[in-house]
């Protein structure tokens, strides 16, 4: 009986986390389109609901009632599985994100590795979708995307090592608490920039949206998808973007910590700070989408392997030597 109670308690906790995440994904799509419109001096979605806030819900409703078309020559099981994989992976990663010192669903020892592993699995949704469509454009998009995500994961991994050297633990709460005096964005500023750019590439955001480059590949791996399945790809993509923003704010911007530990700032509850930081990073994502042209594929690869990887490796050596020389290594 007690086990059953724990089971239902966990389900309640999971719903308490997932439903706000899904709602905020819907809001973030609206915000993305709004920012994009403001940069281009348009109004953006402003008709449905106050300020157009319910535009995404209206879009989702439209997608739900549209017919799902499954191509005759596709591999049907994998074709249907692909958006499900994308969506699931984007949502399960939220289990380890700490919103405050106590408010975290699973405070596991290897939290950052879990995040890294889940984000590296994200490539499967795209490969499966691209291959199962059995069509040229989706397949090209899937191959591009796989190469791109695998390459930029490498540099994200090295950047995480930089942060871990300063923390001495893989636990996300420990990583946040280690930034109590100094956010890592200050000593590791170059790494923050590289993390931000790699996150753009990892989530297939412009200027690195080559997997779905409409000028060359129609819509890349999403070409054959329609209705609800397309909407799931789309929601999964935005949930992933939010997750990358959360990861960035936990690794570099001090997670739930307030910027200064003084009166007006430290009354604001911890989760609000994390949400504000995620929003800040997301608005940067949206601005970059609006102002930067798309990269060419060879430039993208060159940037990942020949510039980011060596630079972040050198920075690992620098960080390690600095910590060693001034005897700042954590854990002793």
């Amino acid at each position, binding site marked *: 009986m007690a086990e059953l109670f724990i089971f239902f308690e966990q389900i309640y906790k999971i719903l308490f986390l997932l439903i706000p995440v899904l709602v905020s994904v819907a809001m973030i799509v609206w915000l993305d389109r709004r920012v994009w419109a403001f940069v281009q001096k348009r109004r953006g979605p402003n008709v449905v609901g106050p300020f157009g806030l319910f535009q995404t819900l209206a879009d989702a409703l439209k997608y739900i009632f549209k017919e799902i078309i499954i191509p005759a020559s596709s591999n049907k099981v994998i074709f249907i599985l692909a958006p499900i994989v994308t969506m699931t992976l984007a949502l399960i990663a939220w289990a380890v994100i700490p919103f405050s010192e106590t408010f975290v669903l699973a405070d596991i*020892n290897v939290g950052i590795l879990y995040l890294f592993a889940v984000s*590296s699995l994200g490539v499967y949704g795209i490969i499966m979708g691209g291959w199962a469509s059995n069509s040229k454009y989706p397949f090209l998009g899937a191959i591009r995307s796989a190469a791109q995500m695998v390459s930029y994961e490498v540099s994200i991994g090295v950047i995480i090592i930089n942060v871990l050297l300063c923390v001495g633990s893989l636990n996300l709460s420990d990583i946040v608490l280690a930034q109590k005096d100094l956010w890592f964005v200050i000593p590791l500023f170059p790494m923050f920039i590289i993390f931000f750019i790699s996150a753009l590439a990892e989530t297939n955001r412009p200027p690195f949206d080559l997997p779905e480059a409409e000028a060359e590949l129609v819509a890349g791996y999403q070409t054959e998808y329609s209705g609800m399945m397309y909407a799931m790809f789309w929601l999964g993509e935005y949930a992933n973007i939010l997750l990358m923003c959360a990861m960035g704010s936990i690794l570099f911007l001090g997670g739930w910590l307030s910027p200064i530990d003084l009166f007006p700032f430290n009354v604001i509850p911890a989760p609000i700070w994390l949400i504000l930081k995620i929003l800040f990073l997301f608005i940067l994502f949206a601005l970059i989408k609006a102002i930067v042209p798309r990269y060419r594929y060879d430039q993208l690869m060159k940037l990942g392997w020949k510039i980011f990887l060596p630079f972040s490796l050198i920075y690992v050596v620098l960080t390690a030597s600095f910590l060693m020389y001034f005897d700042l290594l954590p854990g002793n």
Partner: protein
Amino acid sequence: MIAHAIIFYIFSLIAIVSAIMVTVSKNTVNSVFFLILDFISISCLFIMIGAEFLGMIMLIVYVGAVAVLFLFVVMMLNVAQQKNEWFNSSGRSSHIPVGLLVSIIIFFELIIVIGGWKYKPDLLDSIAIEINTDLTNTQSLGGVIYTDYIHLFQLSGMVLLVAMIGAIVLTFRQRSGVKRQSYFKQISRDRKDGIELVDVENNKGVKIDA
């Protein structure tokens, strides 16, 4: 405890069934997907016995990188065709007896290992490194690998590096006539060699040497 056992049996059942499906399924791409499922359930088993670091590294390395390359190879080359031919011409090909032989040898080796381990009276005494249960397993692994076995660790890293360089050297070829972008050239161009003003004579035009 019962829930733990149930979850364990679910994961191990998935692992075994998907391992069988890797060899049985006729579509090679499906085999790779079953292999990925196998990796994932095995890393779940690792996490269940408390080796969370190994489980996560298994996910990152095998599922996140190695299996992606497998998928690439299987999707790009037409391995499916070859495998189908193997299946259809089972009378002539000799790979099934060889595979059976190898798997029987591995099976007996496993039995010997497990038997020796089970009937050893003082198992804990034979472990060379003392186990500190206070540390998380990431810390204790790091302590063992980077202090006691640092040379072996570096050596295995070198082996991987050599393999990588070998693969690059074998597949690298310099193609001629490929236009490459050179950032240095682009930036160091200035007005003098970029623009030329020419007085064009009427009805003659300008000759541009390419």
